[in-house]
């Protein structure tokens, strides 16, 4: 219930629309998106239909979400986040990719940000190899690219107060997994391209209004 209300409030505040149609085909899905704001996964989560939201788990940084009791409660009770350590020592002992595969096998859909960290420039940075790993280990999983627009203006890195601007989450067609003979780098670049492809100016014009 808290989740339904929170998702509604997030959509109201960010102007992101509820996604109408996610087919219930029993297939697992990985939503992968560009990352520029703390709002990113909340927005994808809030845009999903209520039923999907129940089994969709964001993959998020443990260091951030374990910091305060409120964050811990949100992460475990509302978002059911898969918390992944950024710290190298912890990474070795906790096997982040293993945790994600485990979640998929248990019937969860995942929200991941393959850039690893929030981009400060508005550009989509290079993808880390985790997505390739998940796609090869669980080839039957659908890879859904998502482009998040304007969220970095609503809540940029390093700011505490969000602006009430309108954002958008564009969901794309499933990306075919790694092809025969395709290198890891080429696949990751293709995945990155599929996210950027969705950005073709819906909300914000591609070029500012200089000179016109």
């Amino acid at each position: 219930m808290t989740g339904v209300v929170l998702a509604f409030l997030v959509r109201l505040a960010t102007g992101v629309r509820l996604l109408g149609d996610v087919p219930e085909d029993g297939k697992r899905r990985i939503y992968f998106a560009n990352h520029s704001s703390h709002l990113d996964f909340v927005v994808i989560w809030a845009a999903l239909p209520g039923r999907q939201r129940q089994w969709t788990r964001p993959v998020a940084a443990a260091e951030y979400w374990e910091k305060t009791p409120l964050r811990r409660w949100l992460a475990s009770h509302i978002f059911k986040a898969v918390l992944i350590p950024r710290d190298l020592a912890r990474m070795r002992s906790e096997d982040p990719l293993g945790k994600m595969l485990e979640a998929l096998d248990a019937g969860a859909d995942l929200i991941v940000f393959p850039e690893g960290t929030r981009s400060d420039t508005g550009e989509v940075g290079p993808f880390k190899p985790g997505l390739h790993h998940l796609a090869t280990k669980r080839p039957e999983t659908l890879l859904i690219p998502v482009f998040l627009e304007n969220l970095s203006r609503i809540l940029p890195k390093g700011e505490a107060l969000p602006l009430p601007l309108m954002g958008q989450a564009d969901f794309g067609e499933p990306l075919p997994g790694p092809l025969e003979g395709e290198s890891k780098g080429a696949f990751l670049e293709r995945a990155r391209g599929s996210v950027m492809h969705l950005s073709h100016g819906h909300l914000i014009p591609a070029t500012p209004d200089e000179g016109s």
Partner: protein
Amino acid sequence: MKDPELLYLVGGVVGVLLIATLVTKFLIRKSGETAVLVNLRQRVNAWWWMMVVFCSSLALGRTGVFGFYALLSFLALREFITLSPTPRGDHRTLTWVFFLILPLHFLFAAAPWWGMFLIWIPVYSFVFIPIRSALAGDTDRFLERTARIQWGVLTCIYFLSYLPMLLYLPIPGYEGQNAKLLFFVVLVTQISDVMQYVFGKLFGKTKVAPKVSPSKTREGLLYGGAAATLIGTSLWWATPFTPAVAAGMSALLVAAGFFGGLVMSAVKRSLGAKDWGRGIPGHGGVLDRLDSLLFAGPLFFHVVAYYFGTNMHEVYKQPQWMHDAMRLWMGS
């Protein structure tokens, strides 16, 4: 809403919307669900909602009206800033604009503290905005960024707030009836939009400014504007005007509405967008509906104030309760 004349106005609008709904139903039955007709149906449905919300705000009295326009102003500014490419350096400035400048302005307006209502935006806020942006340290296209925010604040907050301010305009012999004046302005301006659209679709040939707004035609403006002026004149009984003055005021609203729409359309296109948003089905964003009222509100207000010789000296005084509160706070 004790004023029977106000009820006649509401009744008239309900009647017109009923006819519009029936005509749309009939057209769709006759020619099927073409894109134009589906859009027409969406527009008519949205008109019902907008009418209900607008009238409810009037029924709730001053608080309702000022709350409603503060919300509209917030939504309009949200659309405006969303489409304007404001960079990181403007974040803090915009936080102040949305969460302090806007609510305070409507507080001053609702008080009413006339002096502050008049200068809070064009003096205090316009001094504050560039200072805050300069402190953020980003000098890249500084003038454009500042001008952009100031333009948004001026149109979406200041100009728009003149509409509820009509409630306070002192007009001899018209005390307590100002809600009808607000109704008159909104009705004539919006009817003018609709009439220009309808006559433009029927007889439109010569485009006024094809690059700025392809739907604005000279024929639409002339015939639609004339029709709206006629409607406005026929409503003189609800206004403090004689029929002749009502005609002049209606023509002013038609012209200001047309140019407000044209200018906001130019701004919108310079930002590379077709609609301001997607908040109102069939219409676009909130600003797509409000654009014609932005210039009409302040122009109408000041022309009426001048015409009736409103004593601006009275108007500059702080309201008594705020005066008392200040003294209490200062401890004297």
